Structure formats: structure tokens, C-alpha cells
């Protein structure tokens, strides 16, 4: 370059050589030092055309017992797409985890899934139906009954599954494509069988290509009533879902009117099927009877406080129809409400309370049924966000314990373990964390110990900057997803698994069945 030659002596021999190095080699080296690491990160983030969830990430034994063989179930700890090493003792398969096959079903339900246009508030939206409607039919069971659901995929091109959100089903019935079953193709069928052991409010949804399928309405409600019945005179379910930006209750973009006489107690089973938390509040007072599926111990009346219902979570509220013959509104966000009272009577929208109900101190303590003070496994689930590559795509991605999908932890437990998990959210967005197959009790939030009723969840709202300590009993062998139920986040790689040692799955993510659980 002319500018340089002015300041430098004429170049001959070694000088000319070093000039060449400076002029050509250095910029190229500098470029490679930027492009090279990026290329390495890109290739490292790619996943094979078919892989076992067992080969994802790295095993985390939570400071507990490490199995003699590496994982026992063949956890490879790498992403080479290899089959597990079958020199090890033959692992049990997730497909063995089923309800008693000899026991006849108490309830039989046929569900036919279709991909079709939905009409919501006069607008046409591409979505999915279950037996012709979205939400699908409510499945009603009594505690202890064996539920048998026969699924047929009539026209969903990507394939479907059904996951029983909140039900601690046997693992083979969990409905996670590529982990506990293959996605059911068009024309295919699958039968789910499980015992409804615990009364409560649940929902079902697809766990194949789950983000668009659930958003498109491939879901429905499941309610298990207690053997002893309930004390409320009216029992209703309110499934909140947002179709293409339109808030609905039970599929209708309008208020949900529940006729009730003055003084009648109404149980409202609110189910949040969206990707974000929902605020619930009433004009008068309400009582929170159950969180997810577990009854609150000695709940008290709440007024001037909203309840945050996390994505995927359920809340059973008790609201009493006003004694003066008016109605009461239960707001499910500002946009929709359940209106309880005589037909035709309306009331104005109550203002949204500034403060919210703190479940850490709601109700009174009761025995947990196990001792989380002496856990046999301690795990960390630290959620972060950083730039990088996931499946070959650049972006700002969610990390788990500092690593990006698929290099995520596989939390390994043994049946009978008492497990404690510390969850931290270091991102700017809320994460509704959902563990399959188990219910976990909140021990502390931000280091403050729980002081109210045992707060059992299957879906936990973890806002930015907050941390939770939770505990659960490892009493349901299987390979279970532990993921963010903002299903967009799950599709972006916010997925880890809990596995019991000595287990394996015959299914593959992607592969011939094109299993895409997220």
C-alpha cells in the first residue's frame, strides 16, 4: 500500500517476506480467528438425523450415587447419534412402564384429531380439533378409575401424541414423541391407559411439534373428581386459550357465564393453556382450593390480590355467588371473565389488584409425606441466555447450567431418591417450568422458606431474577421431560430430562417417525 511504502525502507529479501506476512497473512489469520470458532460452534450445535434422548448432553448425578456402568441405561454423554452400548446390563425400557394390562378400563374415550380451520370470534384460524372441537371434549373421571383413551390421527400431517399434563402416568403413557412413543402419523392410532390416582384438574395436549400444535388448539381438559365428591354446588372448568391473539374461555372469545343462585359456592377449574402467565382476580373474594392438582391446606379468603397462574398450570378457585342477587366477575386476564350469578346480570370489570397472592405463605403447613431435609440428589437448573448456535442456527438462546441444547444436563436418579432441585432464572423472561411424571413441592423462593400450605406443583412460574428450591420423591421410573412450558422456549432448546438409572428408550428424536417433541 502506498501509504506504508512511504514510511518503510525498500523491501528486499526477509523484509519483503515479512511485509507479505503483514499484508496478507495477518488479515487472513485475524479473519480465521473470528470465523473459525464460529464455524466450530456451528458444527458442534448440529444434531444427527436421528438420535436418542439418552445421548443428549451429559449425565448429572446430583452428588448422589453414580451407577457402576456409565449410566446403566447407556447414557453416552455425547451427540454422535450412536446407539447405546449394549455390552452393559440390559436396561429396562420406558415401554415397560404401563398400567396393569389385565385390568379392564373404567372409562373409554375415543379421540379423533384433525388439522382444520377454526372459527374464533368470526375469524378463521388454522388449527386442530379433537372430535371436531377445540378445546377437545373434557374427559371426566372419578379418582381411582382406569382411563383408556384411544387416539386416532385423521389428518395432522406432522403426526400427533397426547401428553397428560399433570398426571403422574406410567412413563410409556406420557405421550412425548421420540422419548416414550413415536408420533402417531395420519391414519395411525395409539391407546393411552392410566389410573387416575389423584383427584384434580388436568389437561391433555399434543407433545409432537408441540408449540404450533398446542397454540393451534390441540388440547382439552381432564378432570378427576375425588371419591368423596366435592362440597361446591357448581363445578365448572374454564380452559383459557389464546387463538391467534384472541383470548378465549372454553374456545369462545367471550365471557363465560355460569348460572348460580345467590349464596351458591362455585368451583372454577381454571386451566392456562397458553405460553405465558395469566393474572386472575375477582370483584369480591375468592378461595384458592387447589394449585395444579393438590389441595391447598386450610385456604383462606383472598381479596384485593390477583393470582398468577403459570403457563400450563391449573388453579381451582371457589367463588360464592353474591347473596344480594348480583353477579361476580372472575377475570382471567383483563380480556375474559367467568361471570357467576343469575343469568343476564352483569357487573363492571373489577380493577386489577396491584398486589398478588403469595403462595409461599398461603394456607397452613401440613406433612409432606417425605423428608426433603436429607435429599439423596441435589440438582441445579440454572436458566440463562446467551448468543450461540442451536441446531446450526445462530441466535440468542436459552442455556441450562451455562450450556446450550443439546449439551444439556440429564438428571439421573434412582427409584426412592429424595431429590432437591435449585432453579434460577438469569434471563429477562419468565419461565413456566414443567416436570413430567412428578409433583414437586416448593421449599423456598429466593432463599425464603415456604411457610404456608405445602405448595405442590407440576408447573412452576419462575420470573426473571428469581430462584426456587423444590423437592420431589423419585417414585415414578421413566425418562421424563423437565422443560419450559412456554413451548416456544422449549422449541428453542429449553429442555432437559430426568431419568431413572437402568432405563432406556427404543425411540429416537427425528428419525423415520419424524419425532419432534418440542
Amino acid at each position, binding site marked *: *500500500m*502506498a*501509504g*506504508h511504502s*512511504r514510511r518503510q525502507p525498500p523491501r528486499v529479501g526477509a523484509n519483503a517476506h515479512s511485509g507479505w506476512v503483514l*499484508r496478507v497473512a*495477518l*488479515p*487472513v489469520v*485475524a*479473519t480465521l480467528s*473470528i*470465523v473459525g470458532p464460529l464455524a466450530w460452534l456451528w458444527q458442534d450445535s448440529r444434531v444427527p438425523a436421528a438420535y436418542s434422548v439418552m445421548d443428549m448432553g451429559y449425565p448429572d448425578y446430583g452428588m448422589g450415587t453414580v451407577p457402576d456402568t456409565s449410566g446403566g441405561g447407556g447414557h453416552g454423554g455425547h451427540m454422535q447419534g450412536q446407539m447405546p452400548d449394549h455390552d452393559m446390563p440390559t436396561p429396562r425400557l420406558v415401554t415397560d412402564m404401563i398400567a396393569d394390562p389385565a385390568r379392564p378400563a373404567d372409562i373409554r374415550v375415543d379421540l379423533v384429531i384433525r388439522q382444520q380451520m377454526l372459527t374464533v370470534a368470526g*375469524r378463521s*384460524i*388454522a388449527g386442530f380439533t379433537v372430535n371436531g372441537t377445540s378445546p377437545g371434549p373434557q374427559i371426566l373421571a372419578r379418582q381411582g378409575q382406569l382411563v383408556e383413551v384411544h387416539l386416532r390421527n385423521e389428518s395432522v400431517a406432522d403426526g400427533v401424541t397426547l401428553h397428560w399434563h399433570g398426571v403422574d402416568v406410567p412413563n410409556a403413557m406420557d405421550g412425548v414423541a421420540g422419548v416414550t412413543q413415536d408420533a402417531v402419523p395420519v391414519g395411525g392410532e395409539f391407546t393411552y391407559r392410566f389410573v387416575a390416582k389423584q383427584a384434580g384438574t388436568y389437561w391433555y395436549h399434543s407433545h409432537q411439534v408441540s*408449540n*404450533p400444535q398446542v*397454540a*393451534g388448539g390441540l388440547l382439552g381438559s381432564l378432570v378427576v373428581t375425588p371419591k368423596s365428591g366435592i362440597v361446591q354446588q357448581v363445578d365448572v372448568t374454564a380452559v*383459557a386459550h*389464546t*387463538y*391467534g*391473539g384472541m*383470548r378465549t374461555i372454553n374456545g369462545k372469545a367471550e365471557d363465560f357465564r355460569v348460572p348460580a343462585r345467590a349464596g351458591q359456592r362455585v368451583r372454577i377449574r381454571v386451566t392456562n393453556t*397458553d*405460553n*405465558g*402467565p*395469566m*393474572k386472575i382476580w375477582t370483584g369480591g373474594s375468592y378461595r384458592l382450593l387447589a394449585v395444579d392438582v393438590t389441595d391447598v391446606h386450610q385456604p383462606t379468603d383472598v381479596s384485593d390480590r390477583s393470582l398468577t397462574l403459570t403457563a400450563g398450570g391449573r388453579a381451582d378457585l371457589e367463588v360464592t355467588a353474591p347473596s344480594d342477587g348480583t353477579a361476580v366477575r372472575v377475570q382471567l*386476564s*383483563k*380480556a375474559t371473565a367467568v361471570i357467576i350469578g343469575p343469568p343476564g346480570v352483569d357487573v363492571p370489570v373489577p380493577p386489577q389488584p396491584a398486589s398478588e397472592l403469595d403462595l409461599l405463605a398461603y394456607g397452613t403447613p401440613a406433612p409432606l409425606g417425605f423428608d426433603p431435609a436429607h435429599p439423596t440428589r441435589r440438582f441445579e437448573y440454572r436458566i440463562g*441466555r446467551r*448468543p450461540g448456535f442451536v441446531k446450526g442456527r*445462530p*441466535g*440468542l438462546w436459552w442455556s441450562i447450567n451455562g450450556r446450550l441444547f443439546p449439551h444439556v444436563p440429564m438428571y439421573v436418579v434412582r427409584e426412592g431418591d429424595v431429590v432437591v432441585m435449585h432453579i434460577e432464572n438469569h*434471563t*429477562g*423472561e*419468565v419461565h413456566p417450568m414443567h416436570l413430567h411424571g412428578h409433583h414437586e413441592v416448593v421449599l423456598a423462593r429466593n432463599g425464603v422458606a415456604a411457610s404456608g400450605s405445602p405448595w405442590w406443583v407440576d408447573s412452576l412460574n419462575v420470573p*426473571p*431474577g428469581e430462584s426456587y428450591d423444590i423437592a420431589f420423591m423419585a417414585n415414578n421410573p421413566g425418562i421424563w421431560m423437565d422443560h419450559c412450558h*412456554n413451548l*416456544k422456549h422449549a422449541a428453542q432448546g429449553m429442555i432437559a430430562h430426568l431419568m431413572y438409572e437402568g432405563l432406556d428408550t427404543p425411540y429416537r428424536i427425528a428419525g423415520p417417525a419424524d419425532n419432534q417433541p418440542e
Partner: protein
Amino acid sequence: MRTAYKVLAYLVAAEVAIQAMVMVWGIAGLGKWVDGGGVFDKAVIESEGAPPFPEVVGILVHGINGLFVIPGLALLLLIVSFFTKVRGAIKWAVVVLLLVVVQGQLGELGHDLPLAGALHGLNALALFGAAIYAGRRLRAVAVGVEQPEARAATPV
């Protein structure tokens, strides 16, 4: 390579201007929609399908530009700067890239800490200025090298 450098630097500046425009466009659309009775919450933000109001596209464009396009341009600017052989070109490309990184961090942090969003707005001005300066500076240097060259020819 100098032309590429200039073009990339000015593209970064143009993108910053676009970022400011689409964001305000989106927020103005949101305000109008809310004024008409629309309810905007997490469920609506995360909802699939048709946007609740058309200007939400501005917010989406802001995200795509900020996440992919501008960092990509800044990275290319740095790579190109290695080949321009102009004193200070690398330094200013690094400054632009650092400001882009800071801008991304402030934008992300703003989701949790809204005050960081205010700094995100301020840093945008710094990034715009740095990108314009990097481009103009190179033009000045490109002109400048001709002049000393001419002077150098005169006997010292």
C-alpha cells in the same frame, strides 16, 4: 475493501435508524390498539398466528435486526477492516462491534430491568455516531493518503 468497509459502516448506522423507527412505530400501534380496547399481555405476545395489531411487525423487525442483522454487519465490518490497510479502521470496527454487543446486552437486560432500556436508547446514539464516524473517517483517510503521497514526492 475500503468501499465495502464504508458501505458496511453506513449500513450499521442506517440499521440503527431503522431500529429506532420500527420500535416507535410498533409501540404507537400498540397504544392505538389498547386505546381501542385491546388487551396486551404475555399470552398475546406469545400467541401464534395473525398479529393482534399490524404494527407489531415493527417490534418483530426490531428483534430480528438487533439479534441477527446488525451483529452480522458489525462482524463483517471487523473482518473487512483487516484488509483495508487503513490506520484506525480496525480500531473503529472494534468500537462499533463492542457498542453492538453492549446494545444487545442492554436490550436483553431491559426485559427485566427497564432502566437498562433507557441506556439501550442512549447507546443507540453512540453506535449510530461511531458507525457514521467509522465510515466518514475512512473516506477522509482515503482522500488523505493521496495528499501526503503528493507531498512525499517533494524533496525533504
